[in-house]
Every structure is written in structure tokens, then in C-alpha cells.
């Protein structure tokens, strides 16, 4: 590797004409009408030094880009063009190129695009005319070459990442061998990375174009002919351990297949022992996630059965504390306090109402106003002891409009319901009630995340996300607001009927 930091690492002397034309003999480019372009043959597809030497001579001789054809020895070249010598320097002043050009050229040369040499030569001409041409990133030529260089760097990065060594025993020693198939001509270029990283290991990287071998005993890097996958060893006992790691570190609850494919395209997979697991891991992910949830649900009631002062009570008390400071929506600004749910933590039924009213807001407790009284009466009628139930609201702060001195309740909007839903979900997650009752549309929205029509869902239970049963009925305050006596009586009777059914279901589930 001649001069990573040598003569051409610095810009000024790259095209120093003192170096003079190389050893090419003879024929001058004819003046006048162009007959045959000059054919330049490089030794290797990534032959930066060869390109640089030739380009230097060509540009100093004033040979324009259209008069040059570039090819690599052994590759099927162009039909046109003739081998010939570069004319002598035309006496043009020498010029230097900026360092970023060298960096870009060294990368772009390794690209598999057959036009790379010619494009670079055109850019060199541009630079001769304008030393800052490279700064014009929006110039299509600069843009194209930058893209080639970027693709090469990306390929190099993938090589650093996806080379997988396998250990093989070799008389009294071990060698680490990998097969890797890059998109571009980068194997030589990237050998240095592996030398720096694995300087005390004996290793070989085989690729279709060239094989690279490192011998730590003599600190030498050598090249051999290209190889195929079958030349590389078959397996390594450690791969099973690596696969164990790969499948254990993956979290099935966060499947994101596209993101994975974007970074680890399938073309690299056959070199990587872990990728055989991808399909089964994806296929099993949902099942594993459900199993995690199921195990959580199955285990906990026994493990943390409601014991006074136990985890559940502590968690619930801390949740109530946390809710006191909630600012998730604007309602906390005007209300007196957060009205949290109350009741035993192993209730028979978990009731969700709409929102605290004026009296609840002052008392700090749910269902103590007129609607609460009606609710109590209905419960008593069907023989449900309120002290065995948990009662909470979908929205925990009072929302009102001021009319004179009176605070008139106004309905929460969906944004408020959805903001406050978090608390209700946390309450249910701690308590895990077997039976939940939504009183009214607000509660139904909070529990299901959907806007439901009560009359449509009233007669059969819904299943909530955690698999438990939920019944929907009207909110007691609705019953207070019906003006006509007859309809009011009818609706109250229906509410009581609903509660009877709920009472029976709760008994059956207990």
C-alpha cells in the first residue's frame, strides 16, 4: 500500500510535473480531427495509483476527457481506442488538487461502475479550471462521484460489520477464515481495518476477486487468487452459542422487520450464522409476546394476592399520589383536586363513571353527588354492596363552565378522555378486575379507545384488551336528566335490569 499518507496524501504535489511522464513509449496524439481515443489500461479494478499516474500525465499533456478510454487489464474492454503513449507535457502550468478530491477518488475508484475512471478524469479537468469545483455539491458530476464514493464507504462499513470468521486448526496453530462478497472492489482497501483489529491473529478473508491473508508472525499481508464460498470452512462450534445470544437479545414485543432489513440487506445473509434464525424469530414473536403477557397474568394474582400493605396497595397508593399532580390535560387548572377511584383492591365489580361533578370536586371522592345517590340506590335495589366494588371515573378532574356563581358541568371531549385514560388503565392494571362496567359513553371510550353507541353494545359483554369482561350501560346522571316521568321510570328500570345481569355475571366469575 504505497502512500496512504505519502506523496499524494497532501494536495499540493499531486500533479507536480517534476515527476514527468512515465515509461510509456511513443506515439503522439494526432492533432486535428480525432481518430481513435487513447486507451489506458489499469492493472486492477481498484488501481488508484495507476489511475493517478496516468491521469497526471494526460492532464499535463492537455488530453481532454473525450479522448481517453479507460479499462482494466483482463476485463472486456471497449472496442475503440488504441494503446499508445501519452503525449509529453504541453507546458501547461502545474496545478494541485484539494485533499478531499484525493479521498473521494480513492473511494470512488473501488466502485464497480465502469465509468468511474472517466468520471474522475472529467472532474480533474474541472478542478484544473476551478480549484474549488468540488465544493459545488449540487453539480451533477460532483454529486455522482460523491455518491459512488459513498456507496463504496457503505460497502466497506458492511464488510467491517458482516465478515464472520470461522476458526480452523492448522498444524499447531489456528487460523480464522472468512468468506465475504463485497459489491465493489474493496477487499484490498479494507484489509488494513482487519490488520489493525486482529493484529495478533492469523487470518484470511476470501472474496471472489482476491484473497487476503495476514500472518502475525511476520507481520505480513499477502494476496492470493479469488475464491468461492466453498473454499471457506463450513462451520465453527461457537456459532451455536452466538445464535443463542442473537435469539435471546431480541425482544419479541418490538418487532420491526423493515428497520432490520434496511440495515442488514438479505444479500449479506448467507455469510452470517445468525441470520438463519430471523424467519423463525419473526414467526414466533407474537406467540412469545402473548405468552409473556399470559404468564404475567396467570402468575400474579397468586404471587401478589391482595394483602394489606403488600405490593398492590403500595402501588395503588403511589399511583393515587402521582395522579394528584397530573397535568396531562388542561382540566387540572380549574378543578379543585384530582378525584381518584376508591374501593377495595379486590373488588367484585370495577365501575367506571364519567367525570367528577361539582360535589365530587369539592369532596375529592367519586359518586357522592346526586348521580352518586341514584347509583347507590340502584345498587342497593339489586343487592350489590357498594363497599365491595371499586368506583372510579374515566376523567379525573371536574370540567365546568361558570354561569354566575354556579359551576355547570360540561362533558369532557375525546382528547381529555384519551389523556386521562392512562390513569384508568393503571388502576385496572393494578386491580385486574374480572368484571368492569362502563357507565355511559365516556367510560366506554376510555375503556375501549373507541366511540361506541350505548344502545348497540348494552346487551352483551365486550372483551377488553387484557381479556377481561366489560359491560356497558348508561350513566346515572343520564337518568337524572330525563324530563318526562314515564320515560324516566322506564330507563331507570332498564338500568336496574342491567345491574342485575351484571350482579349475576360477577357472581358467576367469582
Amino acid at each position, binding site marked *: 500500500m504505497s502512500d496512504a499518507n505519502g506523496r499524494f496524501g497532501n494536495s499540493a504535489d499531486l500533479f507536480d510535473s517534476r515527476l514527468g511522464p512515465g515509461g510509456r513509449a511513443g506515439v503522439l496524439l494526432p492533432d486535428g480531427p480525432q481518430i481513435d481515443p487513447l486507451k489506458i489500461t489499469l492493472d486492477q479494478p481498484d488501481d488508484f495509483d495507476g489511475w493517478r499516474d496516468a491521469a497526471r500525465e494526460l492532464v499535463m499533456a492537455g488530453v481532454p476527457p473525450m479522448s481517453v478510454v479507460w479499462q482494466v487489464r483482463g476485463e472486456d474492454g471497449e472496442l475503440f481506442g488504441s494503446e499508445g503513449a501519452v503525449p509529453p507535457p504541453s507546458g501547461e502550468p502545474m496545478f494541485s488538487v484539494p485533499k478531499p478530491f484525493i479521498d473521494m477518488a480513492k473511494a470512488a475508484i473501488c466502485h464497480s461502475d465502469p465509468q468511474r475512471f472517466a468520471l474522475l478524469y472529467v472532474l480533474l479537468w474541472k478542478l484544473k479550471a476551478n480549484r474549488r469545483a468540488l*465544493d*459545488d*455539491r*449540487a*453539480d451533477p458530476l460532483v*454529486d455522482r462521484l460523491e455518491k459512488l464514493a459513498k456507496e463504496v464507504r457503505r460497502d466497506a462499513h458492511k464488510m467491517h*460489520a458482516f465478515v*464472520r*470468521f470461522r*476458526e480452523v486448526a492448522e498444524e499447531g496453530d489456528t487460523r480464522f477464515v*472468512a468468506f465475504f462478497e463485497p459489491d465493489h472492489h474493496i477487499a484490498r482497501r479494507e484489509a488494513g481495518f482487519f*490488520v*489493525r*483489529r*486482529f*493484529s495478533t*491473529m492469523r487470518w484470511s478473508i476470501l472474496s471472489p476477486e482476491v484473497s487476503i491473508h495476514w500472518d502475525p508472525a511476520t507481520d505480513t499481508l499477502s494476496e492470493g487468487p479469488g475464491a468461492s464460498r466453498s473454499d471457506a470452512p463450513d462451520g465453527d462450534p461457537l456459532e451455536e*452459542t452466538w445464535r*443463542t*445470544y*442473537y*435469539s*435471546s*437479545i*431480541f*425482544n*419479541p*414485543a*418490538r*418487532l*420491526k*422487520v423493515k*428497520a*432490520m432489513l434496511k440495515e*442488514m440487506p438479505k444479500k449479506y445473509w448467507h455469510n452470517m450464522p*445468525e441470520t438463519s434464525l430471523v424467519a423463525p*424469530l*419473526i414467526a414466533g414473536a407474537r406467540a412469545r*409476546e402473548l*405468552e*409473556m*403477557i399470559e404468564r404475567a*397474568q396467570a402468575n*400474579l394474582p397468586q*404471587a*401478589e394476592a391482595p394483602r394489606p400493605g403488600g*405490593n*398492590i396497595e*403500595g*402501588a395503588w397508593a*403511589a*399511583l393515587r399520589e402521582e395522579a394528584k399532580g397530573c*397535568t*396531562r390535560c*388542561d382540566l387540572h387548572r380549574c378543578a379543585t383536586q384530582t378525584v381518584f377511584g376508591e374501593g377495595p383492591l379486590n373488588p367484585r365489580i370495577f365501575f367506571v363513571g364519567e367525570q367528577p361533578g361539582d360535589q365530587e370536586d369539592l369532596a375529592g371522592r367519586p359518586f357522592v353527588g346526586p348521580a352518586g345517590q341514584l347509583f347507590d340506590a340502584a345498587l342497593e335495589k339489586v343487592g350489590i354492596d357498594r363497599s365491595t366494588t371499586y368506583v372510579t371515573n374515566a376523567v379525573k378532574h371536574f370540567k365546568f363552565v361558570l354561569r354566575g356563581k354556579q359551576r355547570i358541568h360540561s362533558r369532557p371531549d375525546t382528547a381529555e378522555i384519551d*389523556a386521562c385514560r*392512562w390513569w384508568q*388503565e393503571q388502576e385496572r*392494571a393494578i386491580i385486574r378486575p374480572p368484571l368492569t362496567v362502563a357507565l355511559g359513553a365516556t367510560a366506554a371510550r376510555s375503556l375501549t379507545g373507541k366511540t361506541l353507541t350505548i344502545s348497540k353494545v348494552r346487551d352483551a359483554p365486550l372483551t377488553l*384488551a387484557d381479556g377481561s369482561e366489560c359491560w356497558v350501560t348508561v350513566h346515572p346522571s343520564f337518568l337524572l336528566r330525563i324530563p318526562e316521568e314515564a320515560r324516566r321510570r322506564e330507563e331507570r328500570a332498564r338500568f336496574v335490569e342491567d345491574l342485575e345481569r351484571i350482579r349475576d355475571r360477577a357472581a358467576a366469575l367469582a
Partner: protein
Amino acid sequence: MAQLDTREKLAILADAAKYDASCASSGTSKRNSVGGKGIGSTEGMGICHAYAPDGRCISLLKILLTNSCIFDCHYCINRKSSNVRRARFTAQEVVNLTLAFYKRNYIEGLFLSSGIIASSNYTMEQLVEVARSLREDHDFRGYIHLKTIPDADPELVRLAGLYADRISINVELPTAKGLQRLAPEKSEPQIEGAMLGMKGAIEDGRDARKKYKSAPNFAPAGQSTQMIIGADAATDADIVGKASTLYDRFSLRRVYYSAFSPIPDASAVLPLQRPPLMREHRLYQSDWLMRFYGFKSEEVVSAADDGGMLPLDIDPKLAWALKYREYFPVDVNKASREQLLRVPGLGTKAVQRILRSRRFRNFTLDDVARLTVSIAKMRPFIITSDWRPTLLTDKADLKRWIKPEKHQLELFAA
């Protein structure tokens, strides 16, 4: 019970580590194994050696030394009252695994954390021993990240920093209340005290190296932390605010966000839901806005809704732009770097290129398109020599116009 072999332990102790979001192996000092007795190199940029189907990169061997713990934090699968299977590596086993994986180019190094066993100091000693052995016995020059134990002896933390590239301690939850509820045995002052101690040690180390070249390089990749998102009531505004004070007060290199995910045998306190992945993503985006785009945390927060939540359907930069339309359109040919960085869809690299090329040309829409990923999203916000969108920014339904198509979450894409 029969002894577990290394592979069985690995399955348990990697599984237990999968909830930790941090994985990066970048930003440390450059070094390589040339002239040494061992292996390993770091070249500034970290390398992701594989990707798991959860889209996350695998850069380090990320494991716990043990998943036994004397604490009972509700959010943690390793807590005392959990029923998970327990395992424990010896320091030697971790060293051997790290070297064996590294030699095959599977990893960049090791990220080691642990449940707390016996005492904080005892646990910390074990972690340090792994790193010491890798560095001293094996001359390992790859990347090491150690998670320190909150109330371990500062001298042990100092040793950890001498061997490791990065050290970290998790703040766990964005609010003190959340921490109180979910991690009753940890406390904010304790965690932040440890961070402050590490910050001091990192700064001392840097000063010493300025004076003496031979001074050891203390945690050259700095310190980081992680917050769990979605397990407590914290809003995005709370989280962004917390992250920004952490960056300021403890000179953190990174704050990682980990969407809370359902864990087997979870404590009853936790929601049994899928992690809010999009929310996590939006928080990372807002983190970028603060670290690379010159946004102040208040500005990011001002893009949130009344409830303090960032929109999920559009990214926070676009949300900010839609709220502050008077700021747009920005003239690509004249605007300052700061102004250009505010344009939705314009990344730091593209801005750099525009500024460089601007001296040579008057930018047209096509020119901008060539330097960016998607011009469509950007058009309403920029002026070029051939484009002036005065009407667009006034459109009331602008958001609908440029919002990305809603597509199914890619949960079961093959």
C-alpha cells in the same frame, strides 16, 4: 439443580439484558491492536455487527453478570419477587465469551451490567474484575461499557472508568414520583449523586491528560443513561425537560429511551401493553433536535399538545414548523445555517452541502432535491430561485398535505 452450561446461562442473561436500549459503541478514543499482545480496535465510529428482528443493532455482547437481585423494582424482570430463572456468570466466563465472539468479528466489545447481589460494592467489584481481566490479562483493546451500581464505593466507580470506554447508570424513570412508585428502593438523589461523581471523575481524567500524556484515559466515551418510557405518568414534555437537565448537569453523552415493554412475570403495577414504539421514536427525534439542530428544550416542548405529548403522526420538527409558520418560508439561497436547520426534512448534512454549494449557484428546487431525501415535504417551507410557496404556509390543512401516508404498523411484515 444441575449446573447450567455457558450457553444456557447466556440465554438467560442476554434475555434479561434485552430491555436496555443503549448499545452504541462509538465516540471513544481511537486505538488498535498493532504492537500489542491481544486483539481489538476502535476507530471512533461504532460498528453494528448484526440486526435483530426488532430493528435494533447488535454491536456489543450485552449481558448481565447475574440476573439475581436483592432489590424489588416493579419495572424490572430481575426483581427479587420475580419468578424468572436465575443464572450467574463467573467473571472468567464473561471474559472468554467476549474474546471468542470478538475474534470471529461478531461484536465490537462488551456491555456488562448486573443485578445486585450480596451488596452494591461486591457486585461492582465483579463487574470491574471482568473489565480488568480483559484489559490487563488479555490486552483487549475493543469497546467496554460498564453499568455502574448506584451506591457503589466511588473508588470502584473510578476503577470502572479506568478500564471502560463508557460508564452509565440508569435514571430509570423520568419523574421522581414514578421512581418512587416503581423502584421503591432507588431514589433520585442517589442516582443523580452517582452521575455527578462520574462527571467529576471524567473531568478530572481529562484535565490530567492535558497535563500528562501518560495519564489514564478515564471513560473516554463519557457517561450515558436510560429512561423507561410509558411506565409512569410522565408526559413527553416532562421527559424532554428531564433529558435536557441531565445533559446540562451531568454532561451526558447520550440519553437513551426505552419504551416500556411487557415483561414476563411482570409486577402487577405495570401496564401489559405493547411498548409505545412510535413515542420512543419521537423522543429520539426530539433528542436529535436538541443535540444537533440547535433547538432548546422549551422549543421542542412547545411543539407538544396541551397535554404535553408530541404528536405521533408527524415528527417533532415538522410539528414545530407547523406551529411557527411565521418563521417560513426560508430562502435556501440566503438563510443562515440556523434557519436552514429548522426546515422540516433538511438534515445537518444537507444543510452543510447547501452552504458549501451556495457560493457557486443559485439553488433551484431541483438542486435542493438532489441534496436531500424528500423534497415534497420541504417545499412549503422553502424559497428557491424558481419556487416561492407563499400560499402554502397559510393553508389551514397544511398538515394533512405533507403528513406521511398512514400505513399499517409493520408488525407482521415478512
